């Protein structure tokens, strides 16, 4: 018997308009859309992952192009109108051209505008060559100076004159994917151990619960630091990346396992589960056909809430210098540049730009997770 068969008999005969019957997922979606902050966050998160996927398309400059004339260059503003010679103004996106001045006595550099000279900016401009989605060769960039030889630092530059905006955009790929891969690992461990624990109970449950309690009682940072410090510096970046991800997901799975266990325990005695078992379904079938669908929405919400935790963990480790190492660009390794107070005072954008990006991403994911959780909870008002 499918859901559609539950149409009232009277309605069938009298041919009256019956309200459309919605499945649990569309009900959830409907509820979710009403949560406005979460809905906006969904778009924001989508945008950030788009940045991660099409990084090179959005980045105006090449990742490690150094520039001796752009060392610690402060952020440049975008201006909208240029004045023509006859005094009328015309719409033209541009940035002011700058030159470096080095104060000989203090050896400090400062950047001053060159009067009358502008760098025209535009959308879909030509720039460095890259492969879109690792496949399609292209040199079109979303936004940047029209002349590929010009450099504009929208968010400033670091100590080697590298463009911070481009580095943040490229770093998105690593930082955001660590969250996803870490969550995938947590999901597998958490659901299988939590499921075992909740479904079988008894000594299995006891052992797994003690293990979880143990992992949760250890302060995470020293544990992570110890594990991360064990990664040899000479390892290839990809391997370091995966090991860091595994370390970060070590803790994440415990809360998930607890939730799955709780759900299993409460579902085990529900009538429909007992009925399914009496109908002769095997354990695996009961779990797959009846239990997992009834708490999967809840699990998705918990997973969304776990992603930002992992992003923060990666950032902290890389910042300390024991997670990902510099040739890899992530938000954490970018923040590592802003480690001492003197650099921050000289170039606050090194701290503020990647920092804002992290906070925005984490906030958006948190709101999204909260919205999903509320939508998945049938008892919430």
């Amino acid at each position, binding site marked *: 018997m499918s859901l559609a068969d539950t149409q009232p008999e009277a309605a069938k005969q009298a041919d009256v308009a019956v309200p459309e019957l919605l499945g649990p997922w569309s009900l959830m979606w409907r509820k979710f859309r009403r949560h406005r902050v979460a809905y906006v966050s969904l778009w924001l998160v989508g945008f950030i992952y788009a940045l991660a996927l099409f990084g090179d398309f959005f980045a105006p400059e090449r990742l490690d192009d150094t520039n001796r004339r752009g060392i610690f260059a402060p952020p440049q503003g975008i201006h909208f109108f240029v004045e023509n010679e006859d005094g009328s103004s015309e719409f033209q996106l541009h940035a002011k051209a700058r030159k470096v001045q080095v104060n000989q006595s203090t050896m400090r550099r400062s950047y001053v505008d060159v009067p009358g000279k502008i760098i025209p900016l535009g959308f879909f401009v030509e720039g460095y060559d890259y492969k879109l989605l690792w496949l399609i060769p292209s040199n079109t960039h979303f936004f940047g100076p029209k002349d590929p030889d010009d450099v504009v630092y929208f968010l400033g530059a670091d100590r080697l004159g590298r463009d911070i905006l481009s580095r943040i955009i490229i770093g998105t790929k690593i930082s955001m994917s660590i969250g996803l891969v870490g969550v995938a690992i947590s999901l597998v461990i958490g659901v299988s151990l939590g499921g075992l624990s909740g479904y079988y109970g008894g000594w299995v449950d006891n052992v797994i619960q003690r293990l979880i309690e143990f992992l949760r009682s250890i302060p995470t940072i020293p544990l992570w630091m110890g594990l991360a410090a064990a990664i040899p510096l000479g390892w290839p970046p990809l391997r370091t990346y995966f090991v860091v991800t595994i370390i970060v997901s070590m803790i994440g799975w415990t809360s998930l396992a607890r939730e799955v266990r709780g759900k299993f325990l409460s579902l085990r005695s529900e009538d429909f589960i007992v009925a399914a078992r009496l109908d002769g379904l095997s354990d695996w079938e009961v779990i797959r056909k009846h239990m997992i669908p009834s708490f999967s929405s809840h699990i998705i919400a918990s997973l969304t809430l776990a992603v930002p935790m992992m992003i923060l963990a990666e950032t902290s480790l890389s910042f300390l210098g024991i997670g990902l190492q510099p040739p890899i660009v992530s938000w954490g390794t970018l923040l590592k540049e*802003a480690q001492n107070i003197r650099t921050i005072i000289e170039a606050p954008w090194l701290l503020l730009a990647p920092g804002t990006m992290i906070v925005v991403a984490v906030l958006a994911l948190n709101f999204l997770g909260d919205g999903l959780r509320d939508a998945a909870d049938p008892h919430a008002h």
Partner: protein
Amino acid sequence: MLGFLYRRILYMIPTVFLVSVVTFLIIQLPPGDYLDTLAAELSDQGGLDEATAQALRDQYGLGKPFYVQYYKWITGIIFDWNFGISFEKNVPVNDLIWDRLGWTFGISVLTLLFIWIVALPIGIYSAVRKYSFGDYAATLFGFIGLAVPNFLLALVMMYVAFKYFGQSVGGLVSPQYIGEPWTWDKFVDLLKHIWMPIVVVGTSGAAALIRIMRANLLDELYRPYVVTARAKGMSEFQLLMRYPVRVALNPFVSTIGWILPTLVSGEIIVAVVMNLPTTGPLLLRALLVQDMYLAGSLILIVSLLTVLGTLISDLLLAWIDPRIRYQ
């Protein structure tokens, strides 16, 4: 109650054992040992000669199988209170760690107090005045507090303090007081510095606790017993404090268990950023140069004290909440 206490302490023994094994495993993980690091550092000056290396190796049992080294280490701690020696500084670990551990836990406990002082009234307020401006402000603070990583907050605060208040940043006391005996002035100077790590470490915990307190209290506020008390003419404030807040407070105590590990974690990372004389910088350095006994002892003791803190919170909870059955 006594039986419960015994059982909980008995439960702790395997945990403690596991903690020590895991700690030792972790510090053993990196390939090579401190002698390799030392040899690499000395290679510019002609290298470490074989005889010296062998002598050092024998002395510390390096190169022996894992369980031999572990046994040596753990029996040393249990029977002689000897945590081994720090290879890098060449002094017993005992001389290095206790001061710093004291600061770490001192700051963590102060942070816990800070969190309570902040989260309790704000949590109550935002539950009682649900959907008011203050409630939204608290919610917003909560989300941001959870989204900003500790070290980032520390850096931003240091930047603000330096740029706009001209305060010397980093450390727990101003440079001129370091190594001086304790005086009133030094104490005042300490207070001027210590608030910053406390606020930084406490923000995310306070944010989480405000949300918990709000949710707990909202569960209680509309119960029939509250209505009864109100019908009897009790003043609103008295009513609130005497019944629902008291009930909502129980989960508050139980959260010490999970909040303490995060506080200690947070303190360690913030200490690295702010250059505090606590466990953080010492542990980081020890891990980077593979000073394994120092790193191991620090991780071990920090974890043990956290486990102990969790135990105390459980006992406290059992004591204040009669509904918890001792099993």
